[in-house]
């Protein structure tokens, strides 16, 4: 517990100082932080609860569209529209989970692909609201306490706050009853039921929370992009990236998804600038290496070794 709080402190300290030290590398840092938050939210359902979603772009998109449409069409400030997006994302997750959580195996994962696809089609076709295939543009934003939300620094701090809140949420949950219910359902549903746990209710709660948190990050992403297009925001690639970030970093670990974001997004950006065309190849190789040799993910593997060592020491002493 203490070490996680220290980790959170380090994240905040580095984060607060970062814009002053690297004023020219804010965009990439915003990406890393948003992906850290999204992957950590994804992991609540995918890692801690074992229900792999390949549709989390849906919730990113919901957040982004709510903020963009709210601002451009109704003059609603982002904080209101983000809260609304979170509520709508949770409701969507509830209905989707209610329909699909009785399916065991890969069917839930497959069905989640459809969610983002449906939302993409809605966004393209409901032109009066979403601007159709051309998208929505955020031209103005309120200035709370004189802060310009279009500035990269302000956006960086929003992303930092988002990642920090999500990770803090997972730290709390990991120690609490709910966190253990999540893991019990992941490990063995029958055994979980024998312990009085309702597997479907547990999955629904995890999905709703995961969706709501993701959509808040999506709202920040909407501000960062300022221009939202359906095929970009509801892309399968984005859903897959979110899932991969958590998987490579370490599913069901507190810091895994954040580390995954640092490695994948950070390295991905470096590869893009250094290797140009070859970057997707290297990205692919990186993923293959992790899946083959570190199947628990980076942090997952480290944690396991640490526990083994601790136990070996105790057994000897």
């Amino acid at each position: 517990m203490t070490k996680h709080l220290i980790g959170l402190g380090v994240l905040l300290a580095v984060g607060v100082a970062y814009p002053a030290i690297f004023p020219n590398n804010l965009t990439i840092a915003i990406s890393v932080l948003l992906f850290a938050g999204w992957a950590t939210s994804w992991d609540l359902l995918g890692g801690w609860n074992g229900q792999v979603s390949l549709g989390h772009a849906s919730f990113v998109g919901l957040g982004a569209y709510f903020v963009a449409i709210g601002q451009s069409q109704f003059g609603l400030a982002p904080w209101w529209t983000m809260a609304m997006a979170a509520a709508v994302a949770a409701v969507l997750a509830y209905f989707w989970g209610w329909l699909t959580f009785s399916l065991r195996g890969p069917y839930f994962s497959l069905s989640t692909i459809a969610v983002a696809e449906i939302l993409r089609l809605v966004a393209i076709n409901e032109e009066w609201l979403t601007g159709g295939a051309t998208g929505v543009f955020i031209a103005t934003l309120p200035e709370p306490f004189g802060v310009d939300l279009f500035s990269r620094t302000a956006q960086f701090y929003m992303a930092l706050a988002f990642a920090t809140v999500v990770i803090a949420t997972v730290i709390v949950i990991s120690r609490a009853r709910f966190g253990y219910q999540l893991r019990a359902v992941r490990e063995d549903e029958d055994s979980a039921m024998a312990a009085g746990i309702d597997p479907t209710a547990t999955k629904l709660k995890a999905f709703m929370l995961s969706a709501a948190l993701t959509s808040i990050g999506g709202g920040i992403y909407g501000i960062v992009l300022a221009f939202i297009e359906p095929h970009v925001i509801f892309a399968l690639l984005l859903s897959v990236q979110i899932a991969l970030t958590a998987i490579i970093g370490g599913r069901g670990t507190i810091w895994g998804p954040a580390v995954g974001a640092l490695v994948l997004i950070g390295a991905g950006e470096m590869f893009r600038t250094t290797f140009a065309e070859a970057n997707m190849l290297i990205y692919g190789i990186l993923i293959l290496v992790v899946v083959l040799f570190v199947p628990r993910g980076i942090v997952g593997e480290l944690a396991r070794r640490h526990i083994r060592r601790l136990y070996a020491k105790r057994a000897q002493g």
Partner: protein
Amino acid sequence: MPNVLRADGITVKFGGVTAVNNVSLSLGSGEILGLIGPNGAGKTTLFNAVTGFAPMHSGRITLLDKDITALPTFKRTRLGFGRTFQTERPFEELTVLENVLIAAFLTVGRRSEAERLAMSVLEQVGLADRAHQPALDLNLARRRRLELAKALAVKPRVIFLDEIMAGLNPPALREMIAFVSSLSAQGLAVLMVEHIMEAIIELSDHVIVLASGEKIAEGTPHQVTSNERVIEAYLGTD
């Protein structure tokens, strides 16, 4: 003796096969009911039907006079059922303590209190020194005791033990028999499916014998072991 658990006319069908046919049983607190029968007799199916893991075709189940026939497994657990699985099913990625903690969280919301409850159950089953070991690393006898700890940590009124004696060496078997006996002494109602006759004869107040899904005999351990139909079911006829 007032009934803690009653099951009337339990019938379970898998497609056209009747796995359990019209079997009734009842159990008072502190009582141990043994369920025996040859392989494939429907013992585990009956057990699963009562605990809610197998769907029933017909029958009625009451716990402390409350009809629980329609309730899903996890609600039966909340009302006072605890069970072990024939093949132990620990949450393998978690430690021994965390495994029991999950069950303890059913009645206790606060982490510190749930942990205290889990530790006391682990002490009861003799696994306290293994609390921080990954559950995956336990040997068979200890995995059995972990199953028991998980079943006890939900604070059940009735505990269902599915072949927890199987495969234990003689000293471990003696320990397990003594332990089950202590559970009934604490007032727990015990329903056990068991192949080890030594345990059945020593522990059971009452025994039900199943063969091909039918109840073919019931009574005290001595009554059933001298019953001709039972001997026939186990050994066959000449």
